[in-house]
């Protein structure tokens, strides 16, 4: 699974990364987690409010930090696809 955290380095972006890593660890899945800080790349996803979570190139969350349970839910839905 390919996960990207979009953010320019604000404190919420760090929280988002932490929560995502926690969710991945809890699910025990193998995921490629990348933090994208380049503005042009962030914008190429159509995202204007950071932090954002991108799962397999699809934007799932923007502008807020979800709790770990919510991320697990998103990842699980993606796994069942």
């Amino acid at each position, binding site marked *: 699974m390919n996960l990207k955290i979009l953010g320019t380095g604000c404190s919420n972006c760090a929280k988002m990364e932490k929560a995502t890593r926690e969710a991945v660890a809890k699910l025990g899945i193998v995921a490629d987690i990348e933090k994208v800080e380049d*503005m*042009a790349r962030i914008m190429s996803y159509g995202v204007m409010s950071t932090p954002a979570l991108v799962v397999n190139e699809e*934007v799932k969350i923007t502008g807020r930090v979800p709790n770990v349970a919510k991320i697990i839910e998103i990842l699980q839905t993606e796994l069942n696809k």
Partner: protein
Amino acid sequence: MLQSFADFMAYRVFGLTPLSPLGGAVDFFIYDTIKIFIMLALIIFLVSLIRSFFPAERTKKLLSHKREFLGNILAALLGIVTPFCSCSAVPVFIGFVESGVPLGVTFSFLISSPMVNEVALIMLWGLFGWKIAAIYIGTGLIVAIVGGIIIGKLKLEYLVEEYVYNIKMTETELAALTWKERINYAGGYVLDILKKVWLYVVIGIAIGGFIHGYAPADFLVKYAGPNNFFAVPLAVLIGVPLYSNAAGIIPIVHVLMEKGMAMGTVLAFMMAVTALSLPEMIILRKVLKPKLIGIFIGIMSVAIIFVGYLFNAIMG
């Protein structure tokens, strides 16, 4: 009810004498602190719920290819409900420009969004009453609309960094949030804001309470009253570096007004604190050339000083 609780704490529990400077200061501090925190929690929660319906992505769509003037008015209004922090000023700016929002309309949004912010409004409402809060919103919106129209008319598109025009965005359709998610978001946002401002609020109210209790009532009339010509520009100058401390500044300004600071000067000072922020200018430097930042600061300063003189003339 709050007042009797504050009286009880100050005069019974702490055993202070009513009408003594210390008693007055402590009573004032307890009353204002509790009131402001209750208002902050409730109103920020409601505002965040409303905001969850207006993500920046939707605002952008509403504003794209809007004509000037009407676009400026809409942008200033949307600035109130669209969640915005200075850390996302750059993506918001690029997103607007990329999707065809005129530069002047974008600026109306960028001016109104931080200026008419919920923390400042709640503090103004709670301490000064709804009339002054309403005057602040009204004049803030007018400054945002007029400022944006002027920047639009000046045709300054060439002062935006070139790379901004090369960025291409894709449209993303985000799944609509459920009510549970909206409530979670709003609750989380309340905690975030309270964590960020509580200390400033407490310190601001404490200093305010001290001045309230100890400074003579006409203490500031001479320096900041309606007859001192330099009070307004000076207030603006002092306000610029105080950004993000609106929460702590307002309680102090409240007592300064009580001690004779003129209404227009108060408004100008508040606007300088919220709308002319140094950190935001530094962030915007990533997308704007220095000359445009200079023009922006210049227009805002003139507009804010004008508001100050106008209200001093009307109400002084």
